[in-house]
């Protein structure tokens, strides 16, 4: 039951991570990935910066991933999250889950995302037209935890 948590500033190679995740496992029929991308709907975002809490970040992500493994039948779990400056369209993070069953892989990936959003110590700051502003947490994100 492999679990990998990566916190880094550099971009990660999503294609290679997706390709390599659970590769060679013959007992896991279902693989789900989620990728979060720096979103710029209005076309005015100049950039984003993610602050985090070194030390606690890795612990929190590992705890969330272990909780997912305890709840669902997962052969492999991967969480990668970046911090530091990022441009619109860049990938911020990914999770991946592999399970014998598709429902487990989907639910575990959604669980990981819901908890990661509100329980892992990351904070986003957006820069538009020279101004910076901290992204506010959304009530829906906190409410999303209630279903688990």
């Amino acid at each position, binding site marked *: 039951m492999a679990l990998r948590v990566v916190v880094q500033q550099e971009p990660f190679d999503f294609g290679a991570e997706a390709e390599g995740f659970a590769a060679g496992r013959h007992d896991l029929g279902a693989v789900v990935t989620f990728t979060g991308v720096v979103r710029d709907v209005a076309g005015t975002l100049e950039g984003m910066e993610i602050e*985090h*809490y070194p030390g606690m970040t890795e*612990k929190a992500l590992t705890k969330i991933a272990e909780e997912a493994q305890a709840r669902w039948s997962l052969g492999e779990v991967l969480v990668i999250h970046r911090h530091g400056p990022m441009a619109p369209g860049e990938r911020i993070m990914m999770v991946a889950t592999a399970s014998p069953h598709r429902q487990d892989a989907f639910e575990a990936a959604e669980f990981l995302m819901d908890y990661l*959003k509100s329980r892992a*110590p*990351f904070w986003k*700051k957006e820069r538009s037209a020279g101004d910076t502003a901290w992204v*506010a947490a959304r009530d829906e994100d906190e409410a999303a935890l209630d279903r688990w």
Partner: protein
Amino acid sequence: MIDVLYFAWVRERIGLPKERVESQATTVRELVEELRAREERYEAAFADLSALRVAVDQELADFDAPLAGVRELAFFPPMTGG
């Protein structure tokens, strides 16, 4: 002595990322009250505790958590990762 860390706008309001605090406070809440009484910038950062989160030794906790044996406290706004 406790290491106290600040992140995101809490860090910006207080004006530093980390400091060592000497205190006789027995809970997080008591320590926050001491800090608020100390200087305006702490009052600005801690005015609305419902907008803040706290971690005790790198685990999320609540403001009534005891401080006995604690080495590291951190204050920050709700997280926005993902």
